[in-house]
């Protein structure tokens, strides 16, 4: 029981602290594993597990959903299992990657289906002018998100990892698959909300430029941003000139052009 509480605490301190303190990397194995070890009285094992897991997960960064694994869960569990096996790390290391991938899947399920439905609430509270509730929701979602996540290592240690795996396996595969697919589609809502803000028939064609640059030319976002920046820089002086001409002489120069374009895109 004490082991389970310690791991849950260490994983919560890691993932929740990481987010709360400005993405401070508290959730990295090099921090979570020694913390778990320290609280269990085996700091040295914690340090060694932390060092080897940090090496394994060096390339893994958790930014939003574009990640491959969530290593803090694996770090906490690997430390406890190593200590229970008398400091024998060798047997645990092959398990950590599957654990980290499972950790990410569970984190994403919480992210999409527990936190996701709360997202529109911010806008609603803002329109009602309820500043205090916005603050409450902001911190409430933090606790909910990472508190739920920390329950996973808690039960994993309490019942042993086999039981946890069995429970997860008992969820029909077709449902899990459907939820994963839905999670992959959810960002469409965020994009649609951005379009609500930006869409203007006069410049909407640029949206498709961004689409083609990624879909066909496979450019990374930074390259797309650079191209977009160049276009913005090239277009602006002409706009400024048009604006000056419009204010200087005929005020409907602008209007005539935009009407034409609008007809075209309708």
């Amino acid at each position, binding site marked *: 029981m004490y082991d389970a509480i310690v791991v849950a605490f260490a994983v919560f301190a890691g993932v929740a602290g990481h987010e709360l303190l*400005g993405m401070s990397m508290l959730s990295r194995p090099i*921090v979570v594993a020694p913390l778990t070890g320290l609280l269990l009285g085996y700091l*040295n094992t914690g340090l060694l597990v932390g060092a080897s897991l940090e090496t394994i997960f060096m390339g893994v960064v958790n930014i939003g959903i574009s990640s491959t694994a969530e290593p803090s869960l694996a770090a906490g569990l690997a430390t406890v299992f190593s200590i229970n096996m008398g400091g024998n790390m060798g047997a645990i290391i092959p398990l950590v990657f599957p654990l980290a991938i499972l950790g990410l899947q569970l984190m994403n399920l919480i992210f999409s289906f527990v936190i996701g439905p709360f997202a529109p609430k911010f806008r609603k509270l803002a329109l009602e002018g309820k500043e205090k509730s916005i603050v409450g929701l902001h911190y409430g979602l933090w606790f909910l998100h990472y508190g739920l996540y920390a329950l996973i290592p808690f039960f994993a240690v309490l019942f042993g990892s086999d039981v946890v795996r069995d429970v997860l396996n008992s969820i029909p595969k077709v449902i899990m698959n*459907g939820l994963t697919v839905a999670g992959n589609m*959810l960002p*469409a809502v965020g994009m649609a909300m951005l379009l609500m*803000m930006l869409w203007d028939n006069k410049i909407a064609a640029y949206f498709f430029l*961004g689409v*083609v640059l990624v879909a066909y030319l496979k450019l990374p*976002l930074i390259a797309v941003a650079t191209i977009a920046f160049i276009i913005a820089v090239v277009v602006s002086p002409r706009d400024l000139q048009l604006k000056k001409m419009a204010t200087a002489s005929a005020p409907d120069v602008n209007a005539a052009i935009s009407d034409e374009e609008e007809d075209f895109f309708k």
Partner: protein
Amino acid sequence: MKLTQNLSKDEKKMIRKMFWRSATMYISVNPITMGGGGFCYSMIPFIHHFYKNKEDRKLALERHTAYFSTTIPFASFVMGIAGSMEKENSEKPNFDPKSINAIKLSLMGPLAGIGDSLFWGVWRVVCAGLAIGLANAGNFLAPLIFLLAFNIPNYLIRYYGAFLGYSLGSKYIEKMYSEGIIAVLTKAASILGLIMVGAMTVQMVKFKTVLAFHMHGKEIMNVQNVLDSIFVGIIPLLITFLCFYLLKKKVNVIAIIFGIMVLGVLLSVLGIV
């Protein structure tokens, strides 16, 4: 420090408050607006100070709940600029508030591109490399050294970024506004924003069907290949436009989210995905 020269005491206080709040930007991270809730939370000190009228406050709050995502060390820089624009908006009755979000959106993509590779890609790896050596030698300071080495630049950039954003904004936005440059800039920012949204739609909205038709045990048609040959990313685009259409028809966002969940499970049951 030069950055704070022209700022009033109140302004410095607000910027400092915003800096502390900006650390938590991602704690309410969600798949719909990412750091939008946190951005709004960080802007509250500014909004409270600049708008005395309740209705104006509501509109300003609502503005900053929009989608926002960038590398956190650079977030406060954008918040600083947004803060200076809110100030302008509160003083000039015909300021176009749309320009605030347009500028935010155009900044977040490039800053995330630079910040992600710089902080997560380079600096974190350097710090971790240092700490791994120490931990293997049994040095209990390893985690602390890792955290300090990573976070000192992380916090310094976020602190000075907040002041830099606000000062730059205050210095230039008024001038640009009076010369009509803001309108041009807003359009330029919207173009940049639209291109980025198009790019992000393809990259972040993912859909792949496993549907295939067979005849005599041979696959005669792979639906995903056919879809790809029509237009790569056609389904994510259609889903996004459907959401856009529904939002325009004032359909509740929560209904859309649950609709997508049901759709995902349904498609899975039907064996399409």
